[in-house]
C-alpha cells in the first residue's frame, strides 16, 4: 500500500506545549532505540528468543498512551516493545527481560513476546495473535464494575482483526459500552500477507460498523493525529459512551521478526515509507515551528542512547535466572486478599 498523501502533511502542533511534545519525541526515540540496540545485540551475540521490531510505528504506541492515565490498562502483541516503553515501563527491566535475567520485567520468565508491567497497567504482550483483545475488554469491564474510571486499550495488528476474538470482543464491548479503545496498528502486512489479501475490507476502521462502534482512521505516523484521536476515544470511553475502533495507518519498516528479509515486498515501498518516519516528522515540525533548535533534539537522542547503554549494562550485569526459579511463578498460593 502506498503512503497516503495526508501522511505527507506537516504535523499540527498548535495547542501543545513544547515540553509535552519533547516528551512524545523522547518516548518515540526510546522505543526506536530500544529495538535498534536489540537488533545489534541479536546480530552480535547469542540472545535468547526472538524479537519483532515496530520501527516506524512508534507514533501509534506513543500517541495513544499519551492520552491515558497511568492507571489505565493496555494489552499488547508480539510486537510490543514500543507499547511498553510508551506506557512507562522502565528500560532497565525491559532490557534485562530480553537477556532473560532475573531482574527482567517478568523475571526472565516471559521474554519479548510476553513483556508486561502490572504496576504501569501494562497487562501484557501476547504471543497469540488477537489474544489481548478480549482481555482488554475484560479489564474495561472490570473498571466499569469497580467504578474506577479507568479505560483499557488493546493494541493489535491488521492481521489480528481476522481472528474470531476480535469479533466477539468488539461485539460485547459495544453492547455493554465498555470503556475500551481498540487500536489497530495497520502496518500493511501480517507477516507476508497484505491487508487486502487477508481482510475482505482493507479499511479496518469500517469493520466497526458491524458492531455499531465508531471507526476512525488516522495517519499512524503522525503522533499528533494519533494522540488527538485517542483523546477523543478515551473521553468517549470514560463518559460511558462505549468503545472506539481506531485504525492507525502505518508501516513496518523492518522484517517481520529479527532478520526476516521480507522478500514479498518491494524495497521501493519501504524506502517510500521511510520518508514518513514518525520521529523525524515530529522533530521536523518542532524545528519548523521554531520550538526547539536541532541540538535540543540531538540532546534527547543522546540521552536516550545513554539510557539504553545503561540498560544494557544493567542487563548484562544482572544475575542469570536459576533453573528452579520458575517454580515460584506457577501458582499464586497467597490467600485471597479481601
Amino acid at each position, binding site marked *: 500500500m502506498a503512503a497516503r498523501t495526508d501522511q505527507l502533511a506537516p504535523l499540527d502542533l498548535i495547542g501543545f506545549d513544547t515540553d509535552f511534545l519533547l516528551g512524545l519525541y523522547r518516548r518515540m526515540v526510546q522505543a526506536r532505540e530500544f529495538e535498534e540496540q536489540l537488533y545489534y545485540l541479536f546480530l552480535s551475540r547469542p540472545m535468547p528468543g526472538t524479537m519483532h521490531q515496530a520501527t516506524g510505528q512508534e507514533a501509534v504506541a506513543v500517541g495513544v498512551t499519551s492520552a491515558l492515565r497511568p492507571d489505565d*490498562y493496555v*494489552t499488547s502483541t508480539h510486537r510490543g516493545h514500543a507499547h511498553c516503553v510508551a506506557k512507562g515501563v522502565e528500560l532497565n527491566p525491559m532490557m534485562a527481560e530480553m537477556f532473560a535475567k532475573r531482574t*527482567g*520485567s*517478568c*523475571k*526472565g*520468565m*516471559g521474554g519479548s513476546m*510476553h513483556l*508486561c*508491567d*502490572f504496576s504501569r497497567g501494562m*497487562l*501484557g504482550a*501476547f504471543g*497469540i495473535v488477537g*489474544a489481548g*483483545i*478480549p*482481555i*482488554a*475488554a*475484560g*479489564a*474495561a*469491564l*472490570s*473498571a*466499569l*464494575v*469497580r467504578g474506577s474510571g479507568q479505560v*483499557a486499550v488493546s493494541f493489535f495488528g491488521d492481521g489480528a482483526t481476522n481472528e*474470531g*476474538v476480535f*469479533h*466477539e*470482543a468488539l*461485539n*460485547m464491548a459495544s*453492547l*455493554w459500552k465498555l470503556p475500551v479503545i481498540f487500536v489497530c496498528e495497520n502496518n500493511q502486512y501480517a507477516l507476508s500477507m497484505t491487508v487486502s489479501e487477508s481482510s475482505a475490507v482493507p479499511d479496518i476502521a469500517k469493520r466497526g460498523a458491524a458492531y455499531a462502534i465508531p471507526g476512525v482512521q488516522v495517519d499512524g505516523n503522525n503522533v499528533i493525529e494519533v494522540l488527538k484521536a485517542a483523546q477523543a476515544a478515551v473521553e468517549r470511553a470514560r463518559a460511558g459512551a462505549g468503545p472506539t475502533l481506531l485504525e492507525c495507518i502505518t508501516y513496518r519498516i523492518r522484517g517481520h521478526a529479527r532478520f526476516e528479509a521480507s522478500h514479498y515486498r518491494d524495497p521501493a515501498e519501504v524506502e517510500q515509507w521511510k520518508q514518513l518516519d514518525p520521529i523525524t516528522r515530529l522533530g521536523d515540525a518542532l524545528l519548523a515551528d521554531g520550538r526547539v533548535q536541532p541540538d535540543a533534539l540531538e540532546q534527547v537522542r543522546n540521552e536516550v542512547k545513554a539510557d539504553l547503554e545503561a540498560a544494557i549494562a544493567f542487563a548484562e550485569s544482572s544475575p542469570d535466572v536459576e533453573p528452579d526459579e*520458575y517454580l*515460584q*511463578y*506457577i*501458582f*499464586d*498460593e*497467597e*490467600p*485471597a486478599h*479481601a
Partner: protein
Amino acid sequence: MREMSMMAAIREAIVQEMQADPRVILLGEDVGKFGGAFHVTHGLLEEFGARRVWDTPISEAGFMGLGLGAALTGLRPIVELQYADFIFCAMDQVVNEAAKIRLMSGGQASVPLVIRAPQGATGRGAQHSQSVEAYFMHTPGMKVVLPSNPYDAKGLLTAAMRDNNPVLFLEHKMLYGSASPGGGKAVSDPTIGRFGMDVPEASYMIPLGKGAVVRNGKHATVVATGVMVHRALAAAEQLAAEGIEIEVIDPRTLAPLDADLILSSVQKTHRAVVVTEDARRAGVGAELMAVIAGEGFDDLDAPVIRVCADDAPIPFAPAAQDRVIPNLNDILAAVRRVTSDE
C-alpha cells in the same frame, strides 16, 4: 439434616460468596434473565443486578477473555459454560492465556478465575457429553475440581472462588438433581446415592488438593471421580456381600491431586482400580495409574486396572453410550479381577 441438591449447593456457594465479596461477578450464556441452563444461577440477576451478573452473547472465547481480563484487574469472575464441551471454543484463552500468564509475567499476574461447566454423558450425543478434565489436568497452571456430591461441591467451590488461580470446576449433569429449564429432563441413574446431601448453611471451604476416603476397605483401593464415585459405592455394597471390602477414594480435585491419600490406601490394600468417565487414552485414569504404579509399585500385588470411557466419541444411542461409559458391572468385574488371586 439440611438436604440439598448439588445444583442448590453450588448456587448457595455462589450467592454467599457474592454477598461477601463484591469482586465476584458472573459471566455466561443465559446466566441472568434465564437463570442458567441448569438453573444454577436463577435469581442471581435479580439479587445482584446487571453489573454483577452478565448475560453474554454466544462468544465463548470472547467472554472467557473478558473474564480473564477482569480477573487480572481486581475482580474475581466466575465464567459459566453452558456445557463443558464448549470450552474448546475458548481453549486458547484458557490454555494459552489464563493458565500461563502468571508464569509469563514472572508472578505479577494473579488469576482468580473460576470456570464452571456441566459435563458428562446424558444421552445428548457426542458434542454434549464429554468429560473434559484430562485436557486441563494436563495444562500446567490450571486447577481442576470435580465434585461428586453437594457437600463437597459447596466447600470446593467456595475454595475455588477464593483461590487466586484459574480453577476449572466441573459439574456432572447427572449429579445436579435438577432438570434443565433449557428443555432438558433431570437425568440421574439408580447408582447415584444420597451421600453428601447434608449441606451446612454457613459458608465453608474444602481445600483444593485434598481427596476423601468415602468408604473404608481393605481388599482393594478404588479411586473414582465424579459420578463414578457413586457407582464405586454401589459396587462396594455388592462386593461386600461377596466378602470383598473395597476402599473408595474420591480425589475431588484432579489438579492438584492428592497422591498421598491414594498411595497410602494402596499401601494398605495392595490392589487398585481407577474409575473415570473421561476417555481412556492419556486421560485421568492414565495419570492415576501412573501415580499408583510408579510411586506405589512396591505395594502392588496386582496390576492396576483402569475403568474408563472407551476411546470413542460418545454415541447417541443409549445402549451404545452406556457401553462406552463405565458402569456398575465394569467396576464389579475390575475389582473381582484385581482381587482374584488374593
